[in-house]
């Protein structure tokens, strides 16, 4: 967010101080729109699930879940020796909406493995019980 703002700011400065040269055209680029409408947040989500082999959006944090379902999902994932990345959607209502829109899934927690949306707590528990989860996580590097 701050990056967008600053690039916009420098664009304006360019426009005022440099009168010639092709570089000035940058100053006429439209300012980024929808800064707070969820578009940039959907990029955050996209980046999250790309960068983190196991990503969970939950209520609370893994050490202190604030909902039984989130707690269950964390407990299941902690059975495996894989790094767990998490975001607390209770702290950020806009992120919450962005995640829901990204996965087309109405409830939390939401778990993504290797960039793929897997589901919520019922599904992760089911996959744990039938061995699917072990299979899915086996090529993920153990946590340090």
């Amino acid at each position: 967010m701050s990056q967008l703002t600053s690039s916009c700011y420098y664009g304006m400065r360019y426009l005022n101080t440099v009168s010639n040269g092709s570089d000035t055209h940058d100053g006429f680029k439209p300012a980024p729109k929808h800064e707070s409408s969820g578009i940039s947040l959907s990029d955050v989500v996209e980046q999250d699930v790309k960068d983190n082999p196991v990503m969970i959006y939950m209520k609370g944090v893994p050490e202190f879940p604030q909902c039984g379902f989130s707690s269950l999902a964390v407990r299941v994932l902690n059975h495996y020796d894989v790094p767990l990345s998490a975001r607390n959607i209770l702290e950020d209502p806009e992120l919450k909406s962005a995640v829901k829109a990204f996965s087309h899934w109405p409830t939390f927690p939401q778990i993504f493995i290797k960039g793929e949306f897997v589901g919520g707590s019922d599904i992760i528990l089911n996959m744990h019980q039938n061995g699917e989860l072990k299979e899915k996580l086996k090529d993920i590097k153990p946590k340090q």
Partner: protein
Amino acid sequence: MGVTKEQVESSLKAKLNPSHIEVIDTSGGCGASFVIEIVSEQFEGKRLLERHRIVNAALEEELKEIHALSIKKAVTPEQWKQQQESNQSNSAA
């Protein structure tokens, strides 16, 4: 007032034509939390994630007010039959 167990049941019955359905209100009466067990032919050939999506879609309106929805079972009639049989043989043993 939140959603009632009957509303959840009737939406699911209308949209998924289940051969078995069980909806439990786990909210203690405020209608915000439900556990569902559902058997429907519409789950045939679909993996669990897609089955849950079907149930979520059927309850789109209700989910605006429901805070917690646990889908304990979303199985086909065939799977249901197998599970019932294995349960019976377990309890008989």
